[in-house]
């Protein structure tokens, strides 16, 4: 076994099935049951305990996704890569992602049958979530290649050693014993010295406890009876009160207790029925007494699989500001015109040997004799074929064929000189970029190898200009470009052949050979690129 190095500081871990990225082909209730069993494999071998919570802030969040899904490890469709998980840590640390394109099996089937056991893969991935790396021991759970699952699976010794090295072996007492009212009594009741005989109630012992009394009913639950004190044992009934019975969940765990006294999944429920209207045709909607007032508008409930989950907000351009201001010398200027010497840049590009800097709906042009007078002007004055009402551009670069590519939201506008090329704008997905990508941060042709690169958030892609698509083994993490961090504003190659990354009001010069910034501290952009006086543009505080 291999211990990666990171481990959880606490042993009572929480987990949840993501509310937004659930399996598209599986019943979420059965999926959760399988995931709980997979975690139990590790719980039985170590001091760890796992509690399911209804929150995406759990230590281990399990989600199902297809292809590119906002991390640097896109899935590849059915087969080959099945899942991955992150080592312990904050944020997405501990999270497990499963490829939703796989044919997941909730029940073990014959070996020759198609499909992948969710239990086997989940148990493996949770090993990563707890801090174990891959093991080269064939047969070990942490062996990287899928090996199927045996009917009576027990954690192999290699994995047991690994988890126990990190978190210690399981204690003899079960954790439920910590609940005061059900704590097993260590010493047996003793007889009194008085002549009267006392009868002592036998203490409750869990039916799986080695000291269980042979007469004790195995179905007896150790759960405390007060739902308000122990809400974890009394989960809210899903979709209450709109689903009075459970025909679709015949095997729903019937020992579960709900936080309402009259509720039990196996019983027939009598909910308030609407009072019928007698007019024909009905003139108004029936009145529903004793039903919560928001009916039929159900609030968002992540456990409700029939709920229409709120969709992601569409990407919206910043609202256009049209108000004008009068300056102290009486000149009226539009309020959204950026300050040349004190602004960040949306995009920077070297086009036809001149530097173009874009901000909001304006741009500056800097030639051999410096900044052109009268700038900034609207981008659409230079490129009138760009959409009317353009508020900004995300990225701009000059392609090797001298055409100018403008990235605006999820679309690419390609201009030949000043005119839009026929067939454009085209969606970013035409370039092989993922559907979920809302925008690019930057684009450039890297002088070092003449290849085109796209940047967005924490990722970057290498683009094949001949193929017209991003290369297959991308995206990769931005950490490759050491020192520039994530979410850059822009990048371009200047006439000196060097690469410059922009973020906020500063920039870094990049050393292409060493693949790191030449100076960790940012330099202010305005004095260098706009030739502004340093005292106006520069902040005294260091740029980091």
């Amino acid at each position, binding site marked *: 076994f291999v211990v990666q190095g990171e481990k959880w500081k606490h042993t009572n871990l929480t987990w949840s099935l993501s509310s937004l990225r659930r399996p598209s082909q599986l019943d979420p209730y059965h999926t959760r049951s399988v995931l709980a069993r997979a975690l139990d494999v590790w719980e039985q071998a170590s001091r760890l305990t796992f509690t399911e919570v209804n929150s995406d802030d759990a230590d281990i969040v399990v989600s199902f996704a297809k292809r590119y899904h906002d991390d640097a490890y896109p899935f590849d469709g059915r087969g080959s890569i099945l899942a991955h998980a992150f080592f312990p840590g904050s944020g997405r640390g501990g999270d497990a992602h499963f490829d939703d394109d796989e044919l997941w099996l909730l029940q073990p089937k014959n070996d020759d049958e198609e499909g992948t056991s969710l239990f086997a893969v989940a148990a493996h991935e949770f090993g990563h979530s707890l801090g174990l790396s891959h093991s080269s021991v064939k047969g070990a759970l942490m062996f990287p*290649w899928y090996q199927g699952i045996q009917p009576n699976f027990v954690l192999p010794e290699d994995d047991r050693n690994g988890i126990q090295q990190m978190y210690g072996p399981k204690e003899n007492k079960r954790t439920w014993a910590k609940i005061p009212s059900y704590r097993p009594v260590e010493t047996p009741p003793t007889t009194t010295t008085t002549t009267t005989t006392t009868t002592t109630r036998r203490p409750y012992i869990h039916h799986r406890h080695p000291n269980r009394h042979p007469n004790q009913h195995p179905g007896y639950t150790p759960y405390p009876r007060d739902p308000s004190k122990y809400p974890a044992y009394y989960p809210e009934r899903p979709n209450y009160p709109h689903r009075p019975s459970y025909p679709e969940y015949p095997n729903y765990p019937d020992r579960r207790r709900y936080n309402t006294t009259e509720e039990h999944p196996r019983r027939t429920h009598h909910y308030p029925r609407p009072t019928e209207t007698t007019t024909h045709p009905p003139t108004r909607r029936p009145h529903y007494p004793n039903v919560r007032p928001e009916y039929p508008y159900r609030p968002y409930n992540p456990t409700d699989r029939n709920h229409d989950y709120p969709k992601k907000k569409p990407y919206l351009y910043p609202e256009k500001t049209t108000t004008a201001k009068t300056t102290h010398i009486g000149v009226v200027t539009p309020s959204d015109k950026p300050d040349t010497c004190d602004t960040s840049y949306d995009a920077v590009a070297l086009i036809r040997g001149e530097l173009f800097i874009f901000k909001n709906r304006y741009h500056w042009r800097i030639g051999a004799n410096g900044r052109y007078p009268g700038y900034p002007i609207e981008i659409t004055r230079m490129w009138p074929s760009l959409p009317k009402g353009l508020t900004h551009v995300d990225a701009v670069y000059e392609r090797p064929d001298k055409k100018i590519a403008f990235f605006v939201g999820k679309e690419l506008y390609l201009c030949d000189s000043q005119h839009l090329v026929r067939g454009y704008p085209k969606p970013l997905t035409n370039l092989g970029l993922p559907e979920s990508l809302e925008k690019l941060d930057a684009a450039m042709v890297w002088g070092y190898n003449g290849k085109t690169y796209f940047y967005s958030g924490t990722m970057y892609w290498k683009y094949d200009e001949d193929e017209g698509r991003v290369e297959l083994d991308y995206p990769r993490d931005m950490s490759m470009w050491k020192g520039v961090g994530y979410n850059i504003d822009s990048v371009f190659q200047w006439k000196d052949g060097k690469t410059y990354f922009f973020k906020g009001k500063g920039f870094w010069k990049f050393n292409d050979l060493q693949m790191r910034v030449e100076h960790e501290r940012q330099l202010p952009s305005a004095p260098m690129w706009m030739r502004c006086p340093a005292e106006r543009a520069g902040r005294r505080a260091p740029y980091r």
Partner: protein
Amino acid sequence: SRPTRSALHDKSVRSYLENFGYLRKDRPEVANLLMENATQYYEDDFRIAVKTLQEFGGIPVTGEVDEATQRLMVQKRCGRPDVETGLEGKRRKR
């Protein structure tokens, strides 16, 4: 000049080895360039990577992308690298 050596050991094999930590991917952009001029250097790296993969997968260690290796590479598997490289680039062993 175009890459030789069976298209630099088949791009997909190299990609597999890089993705699962057998080949260094520290500076892929630079490496792509250097490779054309230092094929021999990368040849050795490649063979070592294939051998490590074979050893990890429990198949005969030949250093060649043979049939057993190809079978191993199309098997269903976890997406995490087998050889984890931390930020400091160290390999952690038990």
